[in-house]
């Protein structure tokens, strides 16, 4: 090989290495900046102001869990915000629900989380306890985020350890969707919207209904894998204020409570009022529009109330909404599920992020576009404005949420580690269904797993 060629090859290789080194140095420099203290943030804020003054656009990153329809609504709202803030460019991140939390975990771990991030109340404790979020109290006090004429019970769902970290953009709760046409065809009547029914009464009702249904149609969709309903069950059978952890910091739900949760599903499967676990697993993988309720495979289906409109609009039948049954002692356990906006602690545009949140939640035009997509808004002003033009299904969902909010026990965010327990609950339920373990054994293993997770997070 000629001397010139060798030299050329060596120079090319060195250039390759140098460019790689320069890129990694650039990234580590950026990471180092993100770990600086408030003085550095102050410097960055000043830089942002200079950027605005110079006419360049400030980028605001907003992350939410999306789907094709919801993304379009968000883009329209973002366009409205940018029209009022011509110096701002919104950069969006909207993975689907299944990937969203993995994305957020890695983004926060690497210090690259979006400025404005959407959270769900199951994860409030996980993130608020780790110091990765900006407290929002100062923005409320200064008036950047206006909470006048808001339902304060819903505002308080965003408080963790006495600081406000999340502002709700929609609340929902577990509810019972009923295919009333199928019910009528079976010759049964549905109880009234505001009427309560206990779990025992509900179980008897379902068994009676099953005897009147055609083959391959079930009175109810098995809820052993319902991660939202299990917490309602737990709250119905727990001491108020100690649903997740007891006074000693241990997992609060008793073995008896968890055993009874597995028992009810098991009984209904044995009665063939619920389908087999394989059947349920299969139908659980389908999209809402093709699910068991819309496909007339089941009559009763537990789901979050904010999805009522989607189910009704995709069904040929009339779908009714009813409350989750009470415990046999008459106790409600409804858990408000809040989807909320938070600001990441590493954001370089915190004030702008707060302005965006205020705009999103209080701007009437923006909320008309969003139209209760993720639940009932916390602002009573917005609720009144939407009620004038809302879809009838949304009005029903709003009425339902207002009804439930009155009777629901006080919202308490889950302690860190508790959220991860629900996979163990589902896994245990499957083993119970297959007879591998008894409900009592399942309950004990969940309590052990939960205490390990809580202890791990407390270290």
């Amino acid at each position, binding site marked *: 090989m000629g001397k010139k060629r*060798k030299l050329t090859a060596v120079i090319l*290789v060195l250039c390759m290495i140098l460019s790689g080194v320069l890129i990694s140095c650039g990234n580590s420099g950026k990471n180092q900046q993100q770990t600086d203290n408030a003085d550095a943030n102050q410097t960055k804020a000043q830089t942002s102001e200079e950027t605005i003054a110079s006419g360049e656009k400030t980028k605001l990153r907003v992350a939410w869990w999306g789907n094709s329809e919801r993304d379009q609504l968000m883009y329209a709202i973002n366009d409205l915000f940018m029209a009022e803030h011509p110096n701002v460019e919104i950069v969006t991140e909207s993975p689907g629900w299944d990937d969203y939390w993995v994305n957020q*975990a890695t983004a926060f*771990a690497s210090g690259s989380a979006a400025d404005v991030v959407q959270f769900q109340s199951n994860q409030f404790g996980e993130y608020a306890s780790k*110091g990765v979020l900006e407290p929002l109290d100062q923005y409320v006090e200064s008036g950047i985020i206006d909470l006048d004429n808001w339902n304060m019970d819903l505002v308080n769902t965003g408080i963790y350890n006495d600081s406000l970290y999340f502002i709700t953009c929609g609340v929902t709760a577990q509810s019972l969707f009923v295919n009333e046409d199928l019910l009528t065809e079976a010759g049964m009547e549905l109880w009234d919207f505001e009427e309560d029914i206990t779990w025992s009464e509900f179980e008897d009702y379902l068994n009676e209904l099953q005897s009147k249904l055609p083959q391959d149609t079930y009175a109810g969709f098995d809820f052993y894998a319902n991660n939202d309903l299990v917490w309602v069950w737990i709250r119905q059978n727990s001491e108020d204020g100690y649903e997740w952890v007891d006074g000693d910091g241990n997992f609060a739900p008793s073995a008896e409570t968890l055993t009874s949760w597995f028992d009810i599903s098991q009984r209904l499967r044995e009665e063939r009022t619920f389908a087999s676990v394989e*059947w349920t697993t*299969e139908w659980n993988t389908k999209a809402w529009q093709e699910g068991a309720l819309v496909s007339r495979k089941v009559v009763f289906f537990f789901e979050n109330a904010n999805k009522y409109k989607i189910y009704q609009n995709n069904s040929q039948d009339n779908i009714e909404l009813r409350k989750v049954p009470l415990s046999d002692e008459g106790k409600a356990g409804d858990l408000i599920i809040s989807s909320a906006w938070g600001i990441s602690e590493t954001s370089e545009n915190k004030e702008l992020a707060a302005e965006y949140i205020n705009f999103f939640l209080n701007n009437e035009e923006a909320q008309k576009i969003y139209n209760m997509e993720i639940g009932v808004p916390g602002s009573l002003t917005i609720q009144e404005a939407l009620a004038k033009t809302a879809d009838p299904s949304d009005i029903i969902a709003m009425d339902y949420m207002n009804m439930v909010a009155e009777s629901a026990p006080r919202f308490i965010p889950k302690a860190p580690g508790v959220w991860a327990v629900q996979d163990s609950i589902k*896994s245990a339920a499957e083993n119970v269904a297959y007879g591998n373990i008894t409900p009592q054994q399942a309950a004990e293993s969940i309590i052990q797993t939960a205490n390990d997770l809580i202890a*791990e997070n407390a270290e």
Partner: protein
Amino acid sequence: MNRKLNRYAGYVFLLPWFVGFFLLTLIPMIISLYYSFTNFNLLSEPKFVGLKNYIQIFTSDQHFINALTVTIKYVFISVPLQLLGSLILAFILNKGLPGLSLLRAAFYIPSLLGGSVAISILWRQIFGLEGILNKALSAIGFVDLAQISWMSNPDTAVWTLIILRVWQFGSPMIIFLAAIKQIPDSVIEASAIDGASRFKQIIKIMIPLMSPILLFNFVMQIISAFKVFTEAYIISGGKGGIMDSLLFYTLYIYNEGFGNMRMGYASALSWIFVLIVGIFTSLAFKLSSRYIHYN
């Protein structure tokens, strides 16, 4: 000057690989080894907990046992079946059949498509409760069988993925085909003169001569099978299926690390996985001295 340049040129050409290996493989591996002794949850600083993660894995984690069982079952059934199928096809395609190049391309297509997201979704449509397979079974009178949800039944779920892997026989088939072509014609002719049947030629001559390629394919497919993730994730909805029937080890690591934010625990699982794969690979090479013929 020439000699000096020659001496250093080799190192310089190796440098990009070394840099990549250190920055993207070795250093992250060392960091993950450290994390495996901590309770790192992605959002807080890692806190040293000693062997706690490893002790928990080996003494009280049923999911670990389930994931290992599913993965080993998958690897040691699908890989031999895949290699057997690709070997047989390679021998068939080695003959002078009409349209041979078209056939080779057609058999290679599944390997191109691989275990992608689209194929995994397609597999759900085939093996689901109302999938094509059950419709076909029902049409030919096997009504009871047609009631089985092949993917949701814990006894059959992993077999749907084994079939998916075996279906991707094209890649090892091409390598076997190349190996067959390397066998000298004179050896085959000599055996024919000595009265060896076609079957005996394959078993006693061709396969022993191809044994280094067999080992290569076996090791590569074993490693690839241990790493399977996309198919398990899509088909099980990311949670490992009913009763962990599709909880492949890599999926379990992913769920623990990113789903439950237990990165320390997931790191410990990963290192155990490295050891297990290393043991199996070493065993394969150890046994090769007896069964592999290099001359």
